[in-house]
């Protein structure tokens, strides 16, 4: 059992999340498996991350609480739809692997992180990087509280030092 994934999932549950749209990634695998196993969360595997963000925006407009889970590379696709969401005050809650500044293991993740940070910084989106030893469940619950009440999108980055990866089989 991944302690970080379990805590983040507990935070999603505490936030009342009822839909999880995700594109599979090793860095989020343990978390999405927990969402898949949760009978109170409907999961949809999207084909592109920006598509998932558009779906989550539609879900919010119609009264649902959705999270989009992806590798941070997907944010690189999503500038236009995230900008539209900001324009019309339709928030999207994104959990993205990587995106921090420490603990990276592979050079090919540098490009996705650059793109993700560019989108987040360029659109002035609220964002946080989860840290080791935090109470992730409470952080996630409070993060979504801001998303819902401010009606602003937020990206929560989950660097590789968190054990949110899917266990090797």
């Amino acid at each position, binding site marked *: 059992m991944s302690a970080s994934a379990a805590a983040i999932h507990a935070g999603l549950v505490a936030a009342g999340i009822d839909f999880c749209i995700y594109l599979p990634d090793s860095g989020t695998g343990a978390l999405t498996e927990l969402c898949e196993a949760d009978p109170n969360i409907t999961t949809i595997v999207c084909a592109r991350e920006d598509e998932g963000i*558009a779906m989550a925006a539609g879900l919010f*407009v*119609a009264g649902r609480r959705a999270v989009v889970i992806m590798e941070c590379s997907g944010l690189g696709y999503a500038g236009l739809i995230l900008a539209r969401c900001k324009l019309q005050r339709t928030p999207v809650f994104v959990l993205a692997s990587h995106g921090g500044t420490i603990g990276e293991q592979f050079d090919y993740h540098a490009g996705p992180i650059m793109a993700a940070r560019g989108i987040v910084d360029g659109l002035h989106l609220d964002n946080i990087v989860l840290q080791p030893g935090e109470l992730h469940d409470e952080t996630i619950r409070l993060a979504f509280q801001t998303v819902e009440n401010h009606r602003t999108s937020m990206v929560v980055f989950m660097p590789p030092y968190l054990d949110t990866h899917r266990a090797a089989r």
Partner: protein
Amino acid sequence: MQRGDVVDAVIAERDDATVVVSVGASSGLVSAKDPHPATIYNMVLGYATAFAYGIALARPDRRTIVIDGDGSMFAGIQALGTLARFPVDNLTVVVVANGIWGTGDGNIATTPGSAEQLAAIARACGHPGDRVFVTAKAAELRALLARAKREPGPWIACAVTERSSTDRSGARPRVQLDSLEAADLTRRYLRSGTPPGPLTASNA
């Protein structure tokens, strides 16, 4: 069939459905002809169908209709695959297939080229053949939309339309609400279940 015929058919069979319209001329026509509060206008290129899909997922008790353009549909084509994999009964996708980008002089062809090609892609994604249609006749489109109210979808209707002057930039009718106003009206309507009333200074 003209673009206006497509819009007229959707409005005629809409009842209380939520409608999402992609960016361009169709949005202005819907706004002018049927300013229903549960309407999202000018959704950015490539995302109208995915956005509508989210609304349909959220509210299985209500129908959702998206009017997408063929260029926009192809820009967000992966949504057809996701929709086939995780289908919803209450979503109808209407594609205005005029074969051109509705910008500039309106004479540059869109990538899919034809409504038949878009329909073939939808079927190849896994949508049942009896839920994917191509028509160039307004009466057929309206009959299909009426059927979609009675039988579970998702439905994909590729409406072959003629090119018109409204396909050019600057010639298209404008939506009377901005993006925030329309999204807020839709949000409030869907969450309350009752019409929020006309947009005024006090509730804008």
